[in-house]
């Protein structure tokens, strides 16, 4: 190093100053660009899903004048038995024929009957069960339209032609007739939130998948959070640091990287084959997802425990607190927000998991809404998978709508995690 005067040193510093500032700016620009890319991706994803899926929240319905004719229904009184085999479709067919008296040929009639959903008789049965007085009387009833009608009506908005698909020109004419007279309308699709899965898009709903997801997550949370936190506390606060604990740590980190389908196979072999737990049940799903989320929860809980300042531990120990008291009175309250964040991230992961659940049969076509953790069920992401696989065009928008529901559940979960953290975080 040659001896430099102060002026020379200053000169050298100033010479490099411009390039240092330039690099600074470049780095900041790169950061902004990365964030912009991320935001753009999210915007594209959301706008695509919302534009495709928002239609599913509306359902085309057809109003018909129904005569509860005892003769057509083939019953003389209203009770459970008669309701079970009463000919409701006959009544609906009659109403359709009356609405379009010009239709006479067999083929045309058959096409006419496909205007309303094949689930329409159930609507009628429920009405009559609610109010047996209706027998012999008439009333106007709204029925869900068939999914082809629904798709056609929804596509009409953009172009006058509309997507016809299996809809014949004659049927399109009837639909336009009904539209003009106000007997065909788009109404809020409550079925989507109250029904289970169905082969008929207009009768398919996400209730069963939502409940299945809820039960599965409950099982997962109830098992993985206490086990994960207990494991983290033991490893961080009690376990001696030796070769065995190193080995355990490496294995936990490895488990976090195991493909989830492997956990599904494990669940199939152990929980279903060996322990003979029910197939397709949220209980087994929850067990499998517990295995999958445990590493996440353990790792994040350990990080949260590590972040608690050692001075607090020392203070409590210096007061003569036992190890458990140190942990439960001082360390855990401070680590809780971090642990909860880890748990919620794990839960969010579990909520979106599909592959392992396919292995334990939660991919089955299940119509009933599960009432408990041992009932057959499916979950939201599997439902999305199933609908995305269905050929009916009306399932496209339902798939997107289910994605929207899944995403909103995730957003609610994450928001509650943030709120919970804010609440638990020490104000001082």
């Amino acid at each position, binding site marked *: 190093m040659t001896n430099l005067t102060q002026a020379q040193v200053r000169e050298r510093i100033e010479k490099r100053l411009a390039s240092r500032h330039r690099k600074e700016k470049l780095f900041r620009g790169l950061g902004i660009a990365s964030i912009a890319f991320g935001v753009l991706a999210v915007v594209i994803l959301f706008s695509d899903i919302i534009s495709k899926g928002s239609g599913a929240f509306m359902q085309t319905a057809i109003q018909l004048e129904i005569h509860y004719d005892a003769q057509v229904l083939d019953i003389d009184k209203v009770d459970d038995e008669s309701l079970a085999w009463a000919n409701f479709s006959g009544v609906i067919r009659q109403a359709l024929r009356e609405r379009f008296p010009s239709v006479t040929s067999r083929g045309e009639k058959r096409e006419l009957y496909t205007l309303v959903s094949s689930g329409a008789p159930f609507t009628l049965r429920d009405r009559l069960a609610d109010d047996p007085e209706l027998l012999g009387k008439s009333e106007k009833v709204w029925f869900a339209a068939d999914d082809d009608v629904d798709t056609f009506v929804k596509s009409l908005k953009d172009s006058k032609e509309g997507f016809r698909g299996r809809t014949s020109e004659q049927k399109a004419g009837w639909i336009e007739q009904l539209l003009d007279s106000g007997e065909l309308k788009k109404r809020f699709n409550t079925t989507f939130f109250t029904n289970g899965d169905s082969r008929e898009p207009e009768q398919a709903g996400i209730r069963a998948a939502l409940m299945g997801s809820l039960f599965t997550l409950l099982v997962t949370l109830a098992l993985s959070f206490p086990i994960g936190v207990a494991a983290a506390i033991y490893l961080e606060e009690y376990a001696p*640091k030796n070769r065995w604990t190193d080995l355990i740590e490496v294995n936990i980190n490895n488990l976090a990287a195991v493909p989830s389908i492997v956990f599904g196979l494990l669940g199939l072999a152990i929980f279903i084959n060996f322990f003979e737990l029910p197939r397709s049940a949220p209980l087994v799903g929850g067990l499998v997802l517990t295995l999958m989320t445990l590493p996440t929860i353990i790792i994040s809980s350990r990080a949260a425990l590590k972040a608690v*300042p050692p*001075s*607090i*531990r*020392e*203070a*409590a*120990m*210096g*007061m*003569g*607190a*036992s190890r458990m*008291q140190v942990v439960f*009175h*001082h360390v855990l309250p*401070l680590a809780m927000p971090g642990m909860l964040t880890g748990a919620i991230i794990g839960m969010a992961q579990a909520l979106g998991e599909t592959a392992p659940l396919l292995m334990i049969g939660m991919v089955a076509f299940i119509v009933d809404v599960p009432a408990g953790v041992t009932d057959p069920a499916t979950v939201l992401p599997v439902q999305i998978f199933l609908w995305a696989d269905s050929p009916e065009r009306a399932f496209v928008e339902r798939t997107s709508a289910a994605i929207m529901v899944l995403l909103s559940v995730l957003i609610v979960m994450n928001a509650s995690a943030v709120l919970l953290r804010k609440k638990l975080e*020490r*104000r*001082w």
Partner: protein
Amino acid sequence: MSTMTLDAAGRTEAAQSELTGGQIAASAEVRKTVGKPFCDTAKLRMRNVNVFYGEAQAIHSVSLDIGRNQVVAMIGPSGCGKSTFLRCLNRMNDTIEGCRVEGELSLDGDPIYGPKVDVVPLRARVGMVFQKPNPFPKSIYENVAYGPKIHGIASRRADLDEIVESSLRRAGLWNEVKDRLDKPGTGLSGGQQQRLCIARAIAVSPEVILMDEPCSALDPIATARIEELIDELRENYTIAIVTHSMQQAARVSQRTAYFHLGRLVEVNDTETVFTNPEHELTEAYITGRFG
């Protein structure tokens, strides 16, 4: 401090009379320590203490008595092992991975180390104040009431209130915080926090208080208050204090122990150490030639 010289003088005689009998034995035990490491009113008795961190030895055969109601200051350059030694006295070293303590340590004749010794009651008897004020992130009241609660000293609210008040009064903090006992302890100033930590330590009525550089993070005014407090606490407690400030050692202690590279070089009455040190290393340190 006017009382100190008187005290120190009184104690010098007592210590000397004891040493006439025990000097031969003592010199055989510790060849290197000069001065008077032992006293007959010993509250804490340490003999041939060795501390290892893994393979490295941090403390080499230290023997020392800490007398009842006495303030013993431990001084020495950084890394000389004085904090390590202090932390042996209530086994705070237990939590450090690879730390091993050898030798005989006893509190009023009860062993401090041993397979049957429970650290929980030990730490209730030997309290500790740390270098950095470390109140719990809880209210002032809860900070002081924590010890009595976990040890089951008081369960009724009224008893707890009384302990909290008397502890805070003794720590000279009561008047400053009596109106905001439910406010967080971490919201106090550094000096107040350290006095809160002292109040927390004395709330369980310990016999010994260990202080590990209690004023190093404080300004001179807060330091002066803590030093005053230490002098008052001496009436009821035995105090061992580690300090980097020689002035502080001179002001608050009756006896001073000088550590150097893990060895106890000299123990004497504070006045002797600072006016007429026996060992040349001690002299070099207190005259500021290194440290």
